[in-house]
């Protein structure tokens, strides 16, 4: 089977690492990765715990298809109670780290307690060491990776680490692996920092086998071919996710200037064309595309900043290539803050990766600060003398770095948008749900997206459901509850396999199931897999309810509920959440106050 059959439990308080068998009952019920991680979290954490305290646990979870030839087999999930939302934190990432954690022999890594002093974890097959991190505490992700590889004389080590943001408790700090892939959301990096854990470095030589190699390889050949032939896949290879920005602009769902608007006049300076055309000095931003582990799509962008650009003209250390703009980063550093400077945006992206921050949360938090600045609530005195109005590329560049390093006004931005807006007396300017900032889609222009945001267990998120089709067919809230619920369960299932959501550009649900069935013992049917997805979703909800969240948290900001969309296809509309939400609860088999009924729980074996 494609499990290693053991997990690694590390107690940082005691300084002890030990293996235990993978709970196969749970693996069979939750598939792996997100689902299995949720179960382990639920069973190991008091949902009421202080997320930044030693009682929280941090889980790195792989899936059954990780490390196999199934396309995109490098996804892993990081789970904990989120300090940003107080809800379940579940964030996943690509790159190579996840596959190598599994190659080292561990299906899941569970970290408890808090180290007295900064440490990092070094995993080389059976050799697991908790080592002092004094030399890299205070360093960015890039230097951390370099240092650990040199220290262990192994350039092949794959490393997941936090930058200064995670050390400094930036509430949207992420865990970055392989230089520029990140478990970006929910502040999982802040939890890692709270445990004094700088990094996890893994290398393994154990390999992964599958239950039925003959069938598996046949299915893999078919699924590879299917992806290869798909037009959606081709678009991702060629443009990454970035082209979505032109679509959202045209639709009128591209959040602009802290969601005051839904179309951005500077679109031509922030879209894919702006990254491929030479600028006035002949510099071209985009260099190439790059894949994560096992991925036959390769949507990742590799870019470089114009060496003459103000952000790096005196900083040659940033003249190298690194991760380039994707849709959410283009949105977060562009329209939502009103900036139209691709090089400044790319610089901000470098800062996110190097210092370890979620670009969505950072961008939306900066957008709120800019609105407060334009309202006069914030002044240059608050913002370290930097002009912080919408459109300020300087503010973007300066604060993307200062937030990571915990300097000046960057410390305030590091609280996230909700706390920042509350601090300055304007909680209504927070654009997000449950404390987590919105991704780059407007809830009024895409009604199902709004319902998905409101009900997402990890706070506002665009990646926990998939209702673009229904949203673009009908701009009203009609009939959105069912596709939102069904796609949430489907995504939960896909997130639990160890594969990437973007394979849906060429695959249907049956393709995931066929690969799982060949890799694992027992019979894996579509019904079983979808039910597992629903089980995971419901268990996440149970965690949140136990943590003290209620139906009142399944809501959207007043700007979405009351301010009509200013332009575009949904002009004049507000979110119809009040209509969609009760319908959604019913579809889910939940009570009117958003609690799963006993019947629902027992149906799912919960």
């Amino acid at each position: 089977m494609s499990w290693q059959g053991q997990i690694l439990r590390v107690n940082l308080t005691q300084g002890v690492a030990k293996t235990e068998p993978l709970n196969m009952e749970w693996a069979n019920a939750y598939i792996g990765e997100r689902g299995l991680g949720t179960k382990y979290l639920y069973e190991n954490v008091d949902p009421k715990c202080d997320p930044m305290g030693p009682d929280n646990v941090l889980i790195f979870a792989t899936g059954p298809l990780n490390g196999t030839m199934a396309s995109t087999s490098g996804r892993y999930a990081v789970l904990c109670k989120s300090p940003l939302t107080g809800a379940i934190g579940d964030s996943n990432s690509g790159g190579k780290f996840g596959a190598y954690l599994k190659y080292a022999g561990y299906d899941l890594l569970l970290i408890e307690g808090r180290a007295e002093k900064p440490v990092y974890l070094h995993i080389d097959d059976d050799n697991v060491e908790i080592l002092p991190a004094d030399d890299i505490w205070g360093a960015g992700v890039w230097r951390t990776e370099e240092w650990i590889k040199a220290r262990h004389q192994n350039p092949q080590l794959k490393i997941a680490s936090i930058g200064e943001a995670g050390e400094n408790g930036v509430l949207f700090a992420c865990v970055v692996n392989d230089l520029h892939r990140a478990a970006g959301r929910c502040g999982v990096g802040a939890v890692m920092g709270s445990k004094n854990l700088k990094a996890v470095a893994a290398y393994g030589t154990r390999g992964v086998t599958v239950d039925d190699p003959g069938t598996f390889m046949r299915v893999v050949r078919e699924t590879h071919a299917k992806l290869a032939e798909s037009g959606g896949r081709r678009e991702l290879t060629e443009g990454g996710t970035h082209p979505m920005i032109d679509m959202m602009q045209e639709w009128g769902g591209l959040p602009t200037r802290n969601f005051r608007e839904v179309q951005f006049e500077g679109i031509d300076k922030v879209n894919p064309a702006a990254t491929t055309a030479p600028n006035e000095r002949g510099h071209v931003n985009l260099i190439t595309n790059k894949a994560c582990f096992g991925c036959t799509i390769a949507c990742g962008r590799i870019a470089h900043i114009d060496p003459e650009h103000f952000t790096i003209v005196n900083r040659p250390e940033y003249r190298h290539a690194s991760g380039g703009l994707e849709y959410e980063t283009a949105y977060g550093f562009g329209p939502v803050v009103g900036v139209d400077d691709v090089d400044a945006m790319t610089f901000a992206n470098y800062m996110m990766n190097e210092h370890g921050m979620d670009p969505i949360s950072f961008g939306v938090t900066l957008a709120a600060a800019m609105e407060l600045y334009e309202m006069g609530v914030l002044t240059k005195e608050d913002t370290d003398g930097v002009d912080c109005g919408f459109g300020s590329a300087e503010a973007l560049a300066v604060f993307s770095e200062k937030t990571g390093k915990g300097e000046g006004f960057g410390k305030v931005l590091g609280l996230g948008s909700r706390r920042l807006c509350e601090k300055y007396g304007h909680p209504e300017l927070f654009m997000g749900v449950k404390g987590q900032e919105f991704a780059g889609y407007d809830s009024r222009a895409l009604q199902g997206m709004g319902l998905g945001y409101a009900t997402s267990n990890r706070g506002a998120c665009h990646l926990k459901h998939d209702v673009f089709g229904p949203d673009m067919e009908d701009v009203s809230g009609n009939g959105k509850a069912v596709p939102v619920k069904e796609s949430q369960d489907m995504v939960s299932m896909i997130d639990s396999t160890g594969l990437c959501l973007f394979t849906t550009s060429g695959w249907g649900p049956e393709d995931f199931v066929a690969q799982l069935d060949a890799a694992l013992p027992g019979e894996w049917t579509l019904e079983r897999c979808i039910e597992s997805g629903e089980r995971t979703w419901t268990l996440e909800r149970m965690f949140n309810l136990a943590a003290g969240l209620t139906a009142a948290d399944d809501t959207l900001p007043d700007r979405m509920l009351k301010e009509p969309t200013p332009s575009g296809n949904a002009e004049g509309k507000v979110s119809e959440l009040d209509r969609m939400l009760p319908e959604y609860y019913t579809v889910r088999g939940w009570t009117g106050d958003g609690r799963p009924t006993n019947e629902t729980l027992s149906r799912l074996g919960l």
Partner: protein
Amino acid sequence: MQKSLLIDPDKCTSCLQCEMACSFEHEGSFNPARSRIKIFEFEHGKRSVPYTCTQCAEAWCLHACPVEALVRNPDTGAVEVRDEVCVGCKVCTIACPFGTVNYNPDTGKVVKCDLCGGDPECAKACPTDAIVYVDSAWTGFDRMKQWARQTDTRPMAGA
């Protein structure tokens, strides 16, 4: 016409499908650490370079072997390791100036690319045609071979 692996780093996305395919073929599990072909990344992934044995004519590994454990397959042109003969002395690993023969501590034998007997799995698994298996005349391997000759300790014009 004999065939060779033609590698184009410009097309490589570093997905490591080739490493998984290679290890699955040779070791029965997906295990990049045991792959005969390896991807090396430069500058945050700006460039990724697949790298394996070119089955060079000079075959330093073969000549350095004290027990005739390395033999050239006349059909494919590949230099293959005969596991049952290899004693694990590793002399070939230091003799190959390309570093493409590696020692596997688990088995006590050396491993190298054998072109999978003429149907290389890496090329089949590569989604971007960065690795293809084509007639040797088309490979432009001349370039690599030219470089290879600089390493030669044998005939040198004017040496």
